């Protein structure tokens, strides 16, 4: 694209984006979905949203390895009573932290769906990122070895090789011939 045309297209695009951003800020449209939950009888959207968040953070103890909010084993002896209990506590006004802490106190840390950020558990979170950083360093080190030597150094005199010189002459001759044709 000619650079004038490119500059104009870019400017036009940026203007449109600016218009849309302003429109977005002005209309302040919010999500219209009422939070509800399939596994509780909570009707207040805020409470239902809390229920979903809390059950996402906990794991069903029936052996299915699924989240407390997900286990759909019919008649599950763990998920159904626990979900009822969480629902009651939400209605009673307990905070999310208190509810989760009560669960951990009763079942141990195994009921949490993910390692905490404390103590040894933090290695769970940190190690993958450390490995990626290690990989980045390895790539950087590798790329450094790929740096070509300076121009002067690469122009080493080639050892005199009559066969090579002959072949080179022939090829150069052919190129000249083709150019003339």
């Amino acid at each position, binding site marked *: 694209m000619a650079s004038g045309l490119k500059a104009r297209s870019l400017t036009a695009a940026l203007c449109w984006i600016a218009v849309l*951003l302003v429109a977005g800020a002005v209309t302040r449209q919010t999500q219209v979905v009422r939070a509800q939950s*399939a596994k509780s009888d909570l009707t207040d959207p805020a409470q239902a949203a809390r229920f979903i968040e809390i059950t996402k953070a906990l794991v069903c103890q029936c052996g299915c390895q699924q989240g407390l909010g997900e286990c759909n084993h019919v008649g599950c002896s763990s998920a159904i009573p626990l979900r009822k209990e969480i629902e009651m506590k939400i209605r009673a006004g307990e905070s999310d932290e208190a509810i989760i802490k009560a669960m951990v106190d009763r079942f141990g840390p195994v009921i949490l769906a*993910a390692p905490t950020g404390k103590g040894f558990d933090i290695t769970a979170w940190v190690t993958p990122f450390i490995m990626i950083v290690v990989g980045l360093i390895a790539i950087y080190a590798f790329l450094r070895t790929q740096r070509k030597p300076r121009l002067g150094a690469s122009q080493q005199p080639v050892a005199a090789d009559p066969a090579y010189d002959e072949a080179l002459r022939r090829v150069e001759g052919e190129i000249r011939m083709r150019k003339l044709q």
Partner: protein
Amino acid sequence: MATVGSFALLCILVFSAFGIVAALIGCREETRRFAKIAQRAVYNCAALYVIVVGSLLYLLWRSDFNYEYVAAHTNRDLPAFFKLTSLWAGQEGSLVFWGFLLSLYSTAVVVTTRKKFPELMPYVSIVFLSTTFFFALLHVFVSNPFKELMMVQANGSIVAFAPPDGQGLNPLLQHWAMIIHPPLLYLGYVGCIVPFAFALAALITRRLSNDWIRATRRWTLLAWLFLGVGILLGAKWAYVELGWGGYWGWDPVENASLMPWLTMTAFLHSVMIQERKGMMKVWNVVLVALSFFLSIFGTFLTRSGIVSSVHAFAQSSIGTYFSVFLAVIVGVSAYFIIRRLPDLKSENKLDSIVSRESSFLFNNLILLGACFAVLWGTMFPIISEAVEGHKITVGAPFFNRINIPVGIFLLLLTGIGPLFAWRRTSSESLRRNLLIPTICAVVVAVLLSVLGYRDPYALMAFSVATLVAVTVASEFYRGARTRQKNTNENLPMAIFRLTMKNKRRYGGYVVHMAIVFLFVGFAGAAFNAESKAVLRDGEKAHFKHYTITCEKLEDVETPNYYAEKANLRVSRDNREIGLMYPEHRVYKASEQPTTEVAIHSTAREDLYLVYSGRSDDNQRAVIQIYVNPLVRWVWFGGLLFVIGTLIALLPDRFGWGRTRG
């Protein structure tokens, strides 16, 4: 029949050992005599496995409950089809099936490549036969499919015993996706052995030109395809059959299959660097060995249940066998890689950091980073229990928190990478090619956010997906336009011919497009919504723009199960879309309850209805309602993935090869 099968198993053990010895001798001698014996051992093991599988299928078909496997996984009223597919329902049959597929793969590879690479064949045969030997050890000593049920009588004598009926097949396995998911997945797992066998053979014989890569390219791609399809089918089954509303739970067994797929994806990319520039030779061999290791490890994780508790390991000796085999794989690979390091030196250097080669380095980093995160998260409960003494769980929140940003970055690389030219890219050309895709991506992000879809990761995913889609589309468009300058084809024809002339490249672009659809589908989960309705005949429930009317609640009985069924009439925006029938079933043989989900799927969203039981007064049905946006995009992405890989797999002579234009 079982005696025939057991005898065949013993023969496999002996023949594979014999074949290994013959191959080892065949490596040293000039004539091909011993190498041919090893090849014949491969064929014989395949024939023997046919006998083994045939016997086991016969026992299953005839419901011979004398045998523990048959009694544990089938019952008389099981539909005949499922009696056969219960071959892979349990550990013993599953391992036999694995060994069977391995023997078929080995035979196919040996037959098709023995003339082209005669020097490599003895070593390739050793790898195949050693793995066959390992599985035969399992069949004979640890996990015998022909084990008979025994009973201790009152007078102390032990006698064979056959219960009147079996325990039946797990009802969750009685579904079409579950029928083809294990075979395809196993074909993928088993297929990882082929590039490994050739790589090891190349290392040992020091034939380290790119021959071994060319030999195995299609086998690798095929294994990768099977593994990917197997994983997606598993997700589809989980969604449709398990009924918890999702398709991926970061369960250890799911993770086990994802890991080798990630390393194989890395290999498929970095191998291109080796083909073009003779670089990354050590890394590619490492990737291939790692993929094979992970496939055996994945089989082990799936079949042994080690991760749910560290104590399961000690109870079953199958863990010991697998650990030893895995250690042998690591040891042998490491030994030969280190010994051959001088032969694996790079032939070239990178021309520039701003090149496709270096973008593949980052591609590998991200894919392996994701693989490590999955492995680490899957194994962490065991590590934590060993260190801290108490059990913890590493579930979906962990994997999602780490893999979502990693995945989005990978998606970004998918779009930008192909814009890098081989060797060196000018920043001019990069800027030019990125301009329109970036603008489109930003526009999409702004539009969606204006419309109210403000989840940050989803927005990132949608906008990066747009960038990738536009770059892929423009690759096809530009290539086709260039063709059209020299031919008078219309655009679709030009695109078609372009693809057929560069199957590997454009097949790959189709797969990239598939990844776009997959990620868009994944991002839809950020907007999942759910609700609950308790309905009796005639009552209605409203959720989002759906109206669900309960027409009839009924009880149903079939030979296989009892069910409570809800007949629900569903309409959207007051326009009727039909009847849906979620059920709650209890299977007679196993007395296991399951739910049959009812799904109405459109491109925009899935309406997912679960019958979760009756209310306390038994008059009403409790229906869980889920609205899951964009799930269809995942399945469509899966279809594109298959199409793209099949294009890349097509032989060069198919289509228009390199003859004209």
